């Protein structure tokens, strides 16, 4: 597959403070995003995620490095036409209504009036704002602004969608809807570059991820390669068994009312417990094998640094 976004050896530093002190933000970042994938860009606060995105979009000038979008220079208008961007904490012209704002954005893409109006209507429906289209943006909540932001990012049907912390400010339902939209974009053949620190969401939707710490990409690759499928332990909630009989079979146990929560490390012990429950006519309420999560890897890497 062709690289949609290629970043090579990106460096950026800022002068901070009254007596300027140089702070290196990006220290030679390289990665490439393939066509049609959802690429997760992870990192703790201040790692340089937003700065990388701003370099890609031309809001910040990198000191060194090369950025290509669809093989084009990232600042060329042809490249920009193919990108849709949702900023972190989006701010828009609050005196405009949602539909006026989207129409204004459409003018910057030189969209035909009729096509533009149809697309605006379609997008407002997609992000669930069809009833708020004539409301001034200053009256919008943060979550609603995030939805308008997503609509403007998708306005030109971009081939590459860059989302910077898109899930912040959304309620659980909104997050689910956004995840569905991201998956739909992938289905439509679009490439999504997603920066976030909400790891569960990244894990749910991303094909590949890069982990950024202190301005350096520490680890990158396919999600299934980074996260091993080996079971670390199994959590079992059961009832109807005397806790004395479970001694030595589980690593730790806690009881609440009739129910007992067990953490079982070996498969052998798990089988013994299941046999015991079966013979004593007890009841298993839940059995959850815990594999390594992206969060475990992320925490481990950040701690090492």
């Amino acid at each position, binding site marked *: 597959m062709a690289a949609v976004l290629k970043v090579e050896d990106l460096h950026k530093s800022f002068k901070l403070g009254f007596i300027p002190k140089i702070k290196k933000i990006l220290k030679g970042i390289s990665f490439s995003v393939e066509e049609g994938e959802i690429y997760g860009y992870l990192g703790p606060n201040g790692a340089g995620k937003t700065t990388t995105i701003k370099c890609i979009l031309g809001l*910040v000038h990198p000191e060194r490095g090369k950025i290509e979008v669809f093989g084009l220079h990232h600042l060329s208008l042809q490249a920009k*036409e193919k990108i849709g961007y949702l900023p972190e904490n989006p701010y828009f012209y609050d005196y405009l209504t949602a539909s006026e704002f989207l129409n204004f954005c459409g003018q910057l893409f030189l969209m035909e009036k009729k096509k533009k109006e149809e697309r605006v209507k379609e997008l407002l429906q997609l992000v669930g704002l069809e009833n708020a289209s004539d409301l001034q943006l200053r009256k919008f909540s943060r979550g609603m602004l995030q939805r308008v932001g997503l609509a403007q990012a998708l306005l030109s049907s971009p081939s590459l969608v860059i989302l910077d912390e898109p899930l912040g400010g959304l309620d659980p339902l909104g997050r689910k809807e956004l995840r569905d939209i991201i998956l739909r974009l992938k289905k439509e053949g679009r490439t999504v570059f997603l920066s976030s620190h909400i790891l569960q969401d990244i894990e749910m939707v991303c094909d590949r991820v890069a982990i950024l710490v202190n301005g350096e990409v520490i680890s990158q690759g396919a999600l299934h390669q980074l996260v091993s499928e080996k079971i670390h332990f199994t959590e079992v909630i059961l009832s109807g068994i005397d806790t004395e009989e479970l001694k030595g079979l589980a690593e730790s146990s806690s009881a609440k009312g009739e129910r007992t929560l067990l953490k079982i490390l070996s498969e052998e012990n798990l089988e013994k417990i299941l046999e015991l429950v079966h013979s004593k006519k007890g009841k298993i309420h839940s059995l959850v094998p815990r594999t390594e999560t992206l969060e475990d890897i992320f925490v481990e890497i950040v701690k090492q640094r």
Partner: protein
Amino acid sequence: MKIGAIALNTFKEAIRDRILYLLFFFAAVCIIFSRILALLTVGDRVKIIKDVGLASLSLFGALMAILMGVGLVFKEIDKRTIHTLLVKPIHRYQFLLGKYFGLVLTLLVMLLGMSIIFLAVIFAHTFKLEWQLLVAILFIFFELCLVTSVALLFSCFSTPILSSLFSLSFYLIGHFSWGLETLIKKVKPGLGKTLAQLLYHFVPDLENFNFKMEVVQKLPIPPKIFLFSTLYGIFYTVFVLTLALLVFRKRDFI
């Protein structure tokens, strides 16, 4: 097209600004007050109305250009609306020119509004429409275009308060630069004179746009002077806008 869209959006934003209406109100009060002032004057009463009226148009127009202009780019950066805009398929110069022409359009509308009040007050006094006054107003507009470009330049790298001070200084220096001419004549040849001459060529001369006296006194103005003032306005504005573009092109939007 893209510049037009940004200009129209800037216009929509600017006409919602209360400062604009406050200044418009004060300008209207001054123009109307000139009629009362004329009643207290011995001599040519219409001249007083014309003098005060044109001075009001120039001063309040310049204040509008400065106070609105200094926030043009700064507000976009401060509110981070620029992040959404500059990632669209537009060049930075298109954004900056869009902002500039948006404010110029706003100033044109405001100047037209003030001019209507001004001409109406004169009409109420003389029962004549004095169209030649439009010449002076046209050159006030050229001056406002230049002042707006200066405010925009400062807005690209400075805070609104500092930008206001710089732009106001530009306006004042521009109107008093003729003092340097007198100084050059009086100073003996040497380093002082050379420095004064250098400064004289560097500082703007906004008096090039001042045709108030000629129009009020109905003096003939040679077309050569019109042409010179127009070209001076165009070249100076283009020069300042180019500087603004160079500054804006290099900026990082963190």
